[in-house]
């Protein structure tokens, strides 16, 4: 006799009063009951929400008697009563930078980073807070990115890793006048390896040291074709200015660099240079604001400001650009002959790349830093080739079928550009970072050597080639690791092939299999799978 219910239905929750064969499972709890809830907000102690009153199926008409049917009014039903977001609201939400979380625990004893102890090697592996004033400056130059995890902590802080301390030493040397050459560097590395954060750390240190920082937070913004552009007169090949973007850059410079207030215009500009009269003793900060207020004169003001900043007795400069690959290709802008305009024809990009290539040196020394991106990056074979060759990777050769852009290769032709590959953290650095997480309430386990070692090993053991020879690290180099994986894969492949051929031999011995043919192996012999 067959069952009246199907087997599948038995698996469902039964409404039978007698117990089923399987005892009911206990509900899963995320945390054991002994641990306290992390959040300190009052939502847990709040009363449960009130139940909404059910909407009556009847409605009253004017006379007060009840009607059984609700009048169907299709037109009114169709009206979308939802509140539309205001113009720019969604964009503002998307771009919003949250740097503080009051629910996160305050880290006791978190030291702030200071200008004096910036290059102290003892700081390696420690997390230091960014002082509030510098946070404002970094915010002004848009050094923080939305997806960097700042909202997880009470206040912004950064890990002093080896690369940070090396960079800090270089900045210190330039500030002290020990080194008078400009350092030109491109950060490369895998996604999430800390390239953009290195730029942020460089800016932090530069602000602390009283440098002037000019940051282009995303090169993509310059090429997407959504800001105003126009040709610069009497230039061949035609150069294009982006007046609105330049104005906003001047605004950021003025807000982020209070040091500009202490410098005055050295000499009044020529009349044909700036179309408006400029007061003779105007401070450089006010000059930048003049350009910020009037996009029409933004580019001439920017040029003038930059010239003033490169005079003797001015502070060193830090120039930064993120998303370098975007600045190495044709833009979305179109010329008057309906041809795409190359990124290098835009004055701001050209200005930055001239400094990166060394065509325009910084007289007061400084740093020119650029960073590539792995999460938002167009394919630019020329840049890839140039960076790999500068990195000393001779395995990357010119692809005969790829198109290379001479303009891009020309940027790196002069030499002098360093390529720094960012990688994972060392174990000590990882420990410092994880202790900071634990103190902030992000990690709830006990952070000891075993825990750090486990997480560090699981995450690839830090894949930073710069740390390979450091003592206390017994890890496999990344290339070696790749080779090992390759070897393991080939062994598995061989085993599979072997087992298949064994199966075939067995099937030949036992006669025709009870299966259908599904294909043939690479050697041309037929094989079959049993079902």
């Amino acid at each position, binding site marked *: 006799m067959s069952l009246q219910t199907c087997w599948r239905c038995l698996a469902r929750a039964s409404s039978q009063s007698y117990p089923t064969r399987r005892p009911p499972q206990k509900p899963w709890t995320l945390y054991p009951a002994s641990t306290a809830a992390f959040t300190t907000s009052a939502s847990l102690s709040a009363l449960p929400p009130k139940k909404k009153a059910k909407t009556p199926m009847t409605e009253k008409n004017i006379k007060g008697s009840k009607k059984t049917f609700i009048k169907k009014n299709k037109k009114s039903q169709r009206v979308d009563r939802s509140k539309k977001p205001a113009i720019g609201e969604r964009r503002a939400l998307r771009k919003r930078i949250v740097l503080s979380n009051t629910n996160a625990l305050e880290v006791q004893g978190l030291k702030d980073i200071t200008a004096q102890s910036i290059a102290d090697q003892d700081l390696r592996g420690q997390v230091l807070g960014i002082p509030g004033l510098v946070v404002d400056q970094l915010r002004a130059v848009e050094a923080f990115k939305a997806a960097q995890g700042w909202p997880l902590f009470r206040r912004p802080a950064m890990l002093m890793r080896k690369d940070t301390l090396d960079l800090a030493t270089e900045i210190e040397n330039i500030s002290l006048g020990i080194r008078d050459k400009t350092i030109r560097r491109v950060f490369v590395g895998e996604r999430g390896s800390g390239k953009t954060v290195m730029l942020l750390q460089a800016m932090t240190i530069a602000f602390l040291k009283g440098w002037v920082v000019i940051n282009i937070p995303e090169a993509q913004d310059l090429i997407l*074709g*959504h*800001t*105003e*552009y*126009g*040709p610069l007169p009497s230039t061949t090949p035609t150069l*294009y200015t982006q007046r*609105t973007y330049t104005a906003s850059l001047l605004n950021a410079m003025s807000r982020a660099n209070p040091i500009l207030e202490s410098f005055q215009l050295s000499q009044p500009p020529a009349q044909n240079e700036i179309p408006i009269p400029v007061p003779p003793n105007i401070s450089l900060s006010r000059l930048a604001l003049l350009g910020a207020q009037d996009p*029409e004169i933004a580019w001439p003001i920017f040029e003038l400001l930059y010239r003033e900043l490169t005079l003797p007795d001015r502070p060193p400069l830090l120039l930064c650009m993120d998303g370098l690959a975007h600045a190495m290709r044709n833009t*979305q*802008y*179109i*010329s*008057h*002959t*309906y041809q795409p305009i190359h990124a290098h024809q835009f004055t701001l990009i050209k200005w930055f790349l001239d400094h990166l290539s060394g065509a325009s040196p910084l007289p007061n020394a400084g740093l020119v830093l650029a960073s590539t991106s792995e999460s938002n990056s167009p394919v630019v074979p020329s840049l890839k080739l140039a960076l790999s060759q500068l990195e000393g990777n001779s395995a990357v050769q010119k692809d005969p079928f790829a198109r290379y852009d001479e303009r891009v290769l020309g940027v790196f032709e002069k030499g002098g550009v360093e390529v720094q590959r960012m990688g994972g953290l060392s174990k000590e650095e990882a420990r410092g970072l994880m202790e900071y997480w634990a103190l902030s309430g992000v990690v709830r386990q006990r952070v000891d050597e075993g825990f750090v070692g486990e997480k560090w090993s699981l995450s690839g053991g830090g894949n930073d080639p710069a740390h390979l020879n450091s003592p206390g690290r017994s890890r496999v180099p990344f290339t070696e690791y790749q080779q090992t994986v390759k070897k393991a894969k080939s062994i598995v492949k061989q085993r599979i092939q072997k087992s298949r051929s064994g199966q075939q031999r067995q099937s030949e011995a036992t006669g025709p299999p009870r299966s259908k043919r599904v294909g043939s192996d690479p050697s041309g012999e037929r094989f079959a799978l049993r079902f």
Partner: protein
Amino acid sequence: MVYIILGFNFPESRLVLKTVQHFYGIGPQVARHLLARLHIHPTARLSSLNSQTVLDITAELSSMKIENELRRELRVNITRLRDMGTYRGRRHAMGMPVRGQRTRTQTATAAKFNRVERLG
């Protein structure tokens, strides 16, 4: 603020690309070329233009064959075909498909548009 271009009023929030496409004879391609000639980016709105650029747009549009002038040319072309007694002219006059389409069904579009005094 309302922008007046060739006698038409446009709100300032309107995209320049869409504004110029308002005129008969300017489609997406022509609009893009027009904007490129004047160095206006495709996402620009009327509010972001200075007065000189608005004048430039008006000047460019005035030099183009658009609106009534283009409609007139179209009508003249059809009238010429009809006067010559060509097949195409006759089909226009009859409100029938001109280019060999079937007439058993689906001639609504032809009936709508094909006439000697075609509107545009």
